[in-house]
C-alpha cells in the first residue's frame, strides 16, 4: 500500500495530546517532583533525594497493606475467572433467554462503586440488613464491622457479585466466536465434554480471558471506594488496602513526599504485575 504523509494530521492528534498531558503526564510529573522533596508548606520545600523511597520501602505497615492487597487480588481472580467461565458456559445460546441473561448479568456492572459499597454495607448489617439478619437468624455471629474474617468475606462476595459478570460476558462473547465446525470435529473425534472444554473452548478463550484477567487484576489492585464505604479499612487495619493507605497518607496526614514516593512504587508494581501476567499468558503464541 502507498502511504502518503500528511503533516497536518498531527494537528488532529493535538487535542488528545493536550488532554493526556493535563490528565496524566503533568500530574505524574508533579508526583515525581513531590517524591524527591520534603514539603512544609507553600514555597517551603527541601530536596531530599531518594529518602522517601527508602523510608516507604522499609515501612512495615505498608508491607502489611501490600500483603493484604496481593491476597485480595489473588482471591478474587481465583474466584471470578473460573466462576465467570462457568457462567459463560451455562448461558443459553439462543432464544429469549439470551437477552434476559445478558441484561441480568450486565446489571451489577452498571452500579457505581460507592453505591455497591453502600448496598453491601446495608445488606450485611445485622439489625436492618437482609443478609446480616438472615445470618444472625441462622445462628451465626456474623459482623463485618468487628470481625476481620467477616469483613474479608463480605468484601470478596461483594467484588464477586460486582465483577464476575464482566468475566462471564467476555467469556460468552469468546465462546460465541468459536465456529460450529470445531465442536462438530470434536464430536466426531469422540471427545468428551471435558475434552471439548479443555482442547477446544479454553484455547479459543485465551485471548478474552487474558483481557479479563488483566482488567480484574488492575482494577482490584487499586480498589478503594468499596472497602472505604463498607468497612473504612477496618476492623483495625484488616481491610486497609494500598490505595486506602495511600489516601490516608496523602490527604489525611498531608505527607505529600512519602505519599508521592509510594504512588510511584505502587504504579510500578501494577505495571510490573500486568507485564509479567501478560507475557506469561501470551508466551505460547510465538512458538
Amino acid at each position, binding site marked *: 500500500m502507498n502511504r502518503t504523509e500528511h503533516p497536518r494530521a498531527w494537528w488532529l492528534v493535538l487535542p488528545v495530546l493536550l488532554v493526556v498531558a493535563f490528565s496524566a503526564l503533568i500530574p505524574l510529573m508533579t508526583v515525581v517532583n513531590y517524591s524527591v522533596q520534603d514539603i512544609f508548606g507553600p514555597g517551603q520545600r527541601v530536596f531530599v533525594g531518594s529518602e522517601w523511597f527508602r523510608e516507604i520501602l522499609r515501612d512495615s505497615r505498608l508491607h502489611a497493606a501490600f500483603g493484604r492487597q496481593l491476597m485480595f487480588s489473588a482471591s478474587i481472580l481465583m474466584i471470578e475467572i473460573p466462576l465467570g467461565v462457568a457462567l459463560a458456559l451455562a448461558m443459553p445460546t439462543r432464544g429469549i433467554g439470551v437477552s434476559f441473561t445478558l441484561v441480568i448479568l450486565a446489571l451489577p456492572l452498571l452500579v457505581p462503586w460507592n453505591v455497591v459499597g453502600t448496598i453491601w454495607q446495608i445488606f450485611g448489617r445485622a439489625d436492618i440488613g437482609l443478609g446480616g439478619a438472615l445470618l444472625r437468624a441462622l445462628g451465626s455471629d456474623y459482623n463485618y464491622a468487628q470481625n476481620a474474617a467477616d469483613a474479608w468475606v463480605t468484601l470478596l462476595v461483594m467484588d464477586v457479585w460486582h465483577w464476575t459478570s464482566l468475566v462471564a460476558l467476555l467469556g460468552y462473547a469468546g465462546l460465541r466466536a468459536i465456529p460450529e465446525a470445531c465442536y*462438530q470435529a470434536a464430536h466426531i473425534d469422540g471427545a468428551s465434554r471435558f475434552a471439548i472444554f479443555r482442547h477446544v473452548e479454553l484455547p479459543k478463550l485465551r485471548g478474552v480471558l487474558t483481557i479479563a484477567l488483566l482488567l480484574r487484576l488492575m482494577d482490584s489492585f487499586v480498589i478503594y471506594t468499596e472497602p472505604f464505604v463498607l468497612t473504612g479499612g477496618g476492623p483495625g487495619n484488616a481491610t486497609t488496602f494500598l490505595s486506602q493507605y495511600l489516601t490516608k497518607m496523602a490527604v489525611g496526614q498531608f505527607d505529600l513526599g512519602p505519599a508521592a514516593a509510594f504512588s510511584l512504587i505502587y504504579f510500578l508494581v501494577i505495571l510490573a504485575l500486568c507485564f509479567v501476567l501478560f507475557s506469561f499468558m501470551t508466551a505460547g503464541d510465538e512458538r
Partner: protein
Amino acid sequence: MARIDIEDVAHRYTADAAWAVDALTHSFRDGSASAILGPSGCGKTTLLSILSGLLHPTRGTLRIDGREATGLPPRQRKIAQVFQFPVVYEAMTVFENLAFPLRNGGMAKDEVKTRVKATAELLGLTASLDRRASGLSADEQQIVSLGRGLIRPDTAALLLDEPLTVIDPLRRWEIRQKLRHVHQETNATLVYVTHDQTEALTFADEVVVMDQGRVMQVGTPRELFETPKHAFVGHFIGSPGMNFLPCRLAGRELLVDGHRLPVDRNAFTDPGSGELELGIRPEFLELAREEVDGALPVRIRSASALGDHHLVRVALGERPLQVRVPDGTPIPTECGFLRFPPEWIRLYRDGRLLT
C-alpha cells in the same frame, strides 16, 4: 472401510421450512470415491451432516455396512469428516492432534505412537509432528484434519466438506494429489462435497449431482458429461454448460427455429408430440465456413481464445449458442455453418432426458 446406504432420507430444519434434502436413496460403495456436486444451498452439506451423524434426518434410514445407524451419534458411527475451514486443536502439536481421536478411544500409548507415525508418513507430516498446529498454514492444517479423520483403524468413511475452499489455489492441486494417494493406499470410502465441478470430476469415480435437495443424476464424470439425464446437469456440468434449443419432433427430423435437423430416432422411444428441448454440448458442435450437409446457418457474435481452444458465441436466428472450437481450426468471421452431430443430440421434455 464400509459401505453406506441411505434410503428415502429427507430432512428439513424446521417443520414449516422447505426440504433441505428430499427423499434421497443412494449407496456409497465400500472403497469408492464419490463426489456430491451441486450449487450452494442444494442440500449437499445437510446430506453430509446426516451421514456423519451431526444431524438426524427428519425421515428415512441410514445403514453402515448393512447395520442400522440412523440414530447413532457421530463417535459411534466411526465416520470422520474434514470441514470447509481447517479445524485443528490449536494448543496441541501435530502429533497430539493426530493422536487425539485415538486417545479419546482409550488406545494404548505404543499403538497410538505407531499409528500416528504411519499416518504422518502417509500424509507427509513426519517433519512437522512436533510443531504447534496453530503455527501451520491453512493447507497444512487441512492435511492435519484429514489425518485425524484417517487415523482411527475402524473409520468407516471419510467425508470431506468442500475441503479446498480456503486453500491457496497453488496448493489445491497438491492436496488433491494427496487425497488420491490416500484413497489408493487405504481404500477408504470417501465422500467429497463440492460445488466445483473440476474438483468433483477429477477426484471421484462416481458423482452425485444434487439440486434443491434432490439427486439429479448419479454417474461417472463421463456419463454426466455425455448424457446428462436432466437439463440442470447439462447446465451445471461443463464450462460453459450445455446449449439448449426449443424444438419439435417431425418424423425422423427435428424442427428447430424453422430448420430441419437429422436425429437418431433409435436413441429414444416415441415421445409423442409437443415441445421438446434439444441439448448439445459446446464441445460437440462443429463450426464450418462452407455449407456442409445438414449444417445450419449461424451468425458469429464473438470469439475468445481460452488457451487450447476458442469459445465462439453464435446465433441461430435469435437463439444464442456457444461452440468450443479446438485451436488451429479456422473460425468464420461473420457467417458460418453449424453441424449438430446426431449422436450428440440429447432431447429433453420438462427438463428430463428422453430415453
